[in-house]
């Protein structure tokens, strides 16, 4: 696994809708900029070797870091794979849509649900939004949220940005009716 850079982002919201948010609502992101394991190989039919050689290691690196950046138990989470212009979106999907990647985060966060994800291809500096949902019940509407990320010099054309996001709470000022009230 070749990692060029690790990026950490935290956002604390203190005011939303003109009203105080107390305590401040925090969302954290940690991203690793990795070399695309399939760069320069043309169309690779079987991606399993590159997945087996990288996905678990990247998940193990990012999971404790994003929880440390959050500094509180995670209540919602999500993930991202942003592929540089020379790669396939399938390359990013290969690295993040495996249990070998996601279980590191699920186990560290005591989570059970699937991680919502964004997969996208773009140039260095591309803006992407990571969706987050509740860690044990993806129907908990208060916790549906997203965080926007941009890394000015990544991904290079032969790189992939792999990121995890965690939130310590639902949306600030969340006040929508629960999902269950509409399905009775």
């Amino acid at each position: 696994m070749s990692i060029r850079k690790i990026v950490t982002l935290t956002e604390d919201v203190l005011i939303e809708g003109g009203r105080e948010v107390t305590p401040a609502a925090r969302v954290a992101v940690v991203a690793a900029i990795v070399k695309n394991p399939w760069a320069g190989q043309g169309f690779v039919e079987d991606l399993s070797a590159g997945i087996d050689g990288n996905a678990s290691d990247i998940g193990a690196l990012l999971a404790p870091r994003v929880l440390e950046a959050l500094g509180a138990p995670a209540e919602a989470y999500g993930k991202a794979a942003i592929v540089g212009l020379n790669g396939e979106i399938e390359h990013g999907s290969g690295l993040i849509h495996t249990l070998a990647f996601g279980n590191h985060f699920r186990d560290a966060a005591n989570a059970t649900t699937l991680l919502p994800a964004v997969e996208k291809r773009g140039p260095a500096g591309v803006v992407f939004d990571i969706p987050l949902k509740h860690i044990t019940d993806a129907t908990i509407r208060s916790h549906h949220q997203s965080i926007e990320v941009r890394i000015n010099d990544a991904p290079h054309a032969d790189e992939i940005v792999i990121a995890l996001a965690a939130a310590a709470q639902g949306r600030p000022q969340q006040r929508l009716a629960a999902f269950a009230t509409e399905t009775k």
Partner: protein
Amino acid sequence: MNDQGLGIRKIVYYSEEILLENGLSPAVPAIRATAAAVVTNPWLDGKATDDLNEEVIQLAPVLARKLTDVLTKELGGVDAIQAFGKAAIVGTAGEIEHGAALIHTPFFGNLVREYFDGESIICFADDRADAGASLVVPLWHKNAAATRTHYQTITTRISDAPRPGEIVVALGASTGPRPHSRIGDRLTDPIVKADTLGDLIS
């Protein structure tokens, strides 16, 4: 008054740790980071001749304290911080001078130096822009500004700030030099003048 009462809407921390640059690990690793606060512009609807001092005294010291606290905690203590810089992005309803007021007086800069245990003038960038604008924050050594190894930058950006009536105030810091810094310094430089370069530029 609490942070919200002062109009602080958001605090954002961003850091980059470089493990490889041009394929090689830096001999001296460094983390570059920014801490940024989104605040309501206290001078909206004011005139271009208004005195700004009263609000500066109320707000700038709090921002200096808050942003240095974030960077000190995240970067592993004051002694770990070797380089610093500052920045302001004024929303489109404000004056550039409003951003300058928050970062260019002793009520911000002196406190940043005191909290970071630094002596240098603090290098800076400022701009007026829409929400989501990127701004490159210059950094240099906190005690020896001419130290060339520590000339570096970090880009700060907040997706939804500044709104037209807000100001983003950011502080940048680095725990080390540029990766692979190798362009000499003032002690090793040759004397360079136009006439010593001869045919190259004649």
